[in-house]
């Protein structure tokens, strides 16, 4: 394997890492906003890391330029998607999850709602 492929491998590995962390967060947090924080943010970073890997492996400058344009469009579209979901959640009046004041942590026990 060349140096380039090693760097691409690091990018793809971090993509997998962020993606699975986002998935865990999506199931772990109790309310829609926090789930969106974890899922949306880590999902964006996962796809972005995959694009960086593709950019490193690009065979010539023309394809690299296209990948860069796709990355910029993705930076615009991914937050817009989570913004739309968040906006409708907010307008339907969903309350925000408040962790227990003492620990400020996600508790193991079921919290009273």
């Amino acid at each position, binding site marked *: 394997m060349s140096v380039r492929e090693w760097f691409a491998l690091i990018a793809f590995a971090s993509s997998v890492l962020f993606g699975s962390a986002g998935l*865990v967060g999506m199931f772990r947090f109790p309310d829609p*906003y926090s789930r969106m924080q974890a899922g949306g*943010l880590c999902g*964006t970073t996962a796809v*972005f890391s995959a694009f960086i890997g593709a950019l490193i492996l690009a065979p010539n400058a023309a394809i690299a330029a296209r990948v860069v344009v796709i990355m*910029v469009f993705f*930076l615009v579209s991914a937050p817009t998607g989570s913004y739309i979901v968040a906006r409708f959640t907010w307008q339907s009046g969903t309350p925000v999850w408040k962790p227990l004041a003492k620990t400020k942590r996600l508790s193991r026990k079921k919290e009273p709602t």
Partner: protein
Amino acid sequence: MRAEKKWGFIRFMLTTLFLYALWLLFTASIEPYSLIFGAVGSLLIAALTYNIFIARHQANLRYIIPNPFHLVLYIVILVFFLYQSSIHMVRAVFTGKASPRIVHFRTRLKSDIARMVLANSITITPGTITLDLNDDHLTVHWFFCDTSHAKLAGEKVKGRMERFIGNIWS
């Protein structure tokens, strides 16, 4: 009426140029068939959508055309912010430590595009999601909240980014 028409024409031409530049970048060929087809396509799409792409009331070219140097710089900084905030988020997922709260604040940016970019940047930077953008009033869900003071919260969430975006669409 005359100024209105002129402004409409400028918006139409800007939209066409933007679409045609993207077409050239994506096809990357200089055959006459591809060039003509792209030109006709971008004219058609621009005629249909220029009113949405650049709103009528944004009557100032500096609100629409970005400063290219600052734009590229900002995208690089944004990627750095994206990774930093993801690492924060991964840590929060595994420790379960958080203090979510809704904060409200105002922005001083004037142009619609700059406000949209600010809202999107807030969504991808450390633990914040924009819930609502109403003229210059932002409602933000902040995941690692440590203050309830509106001005301080605004400065902490958007301070750095607002300064950069103010340079792009000044």
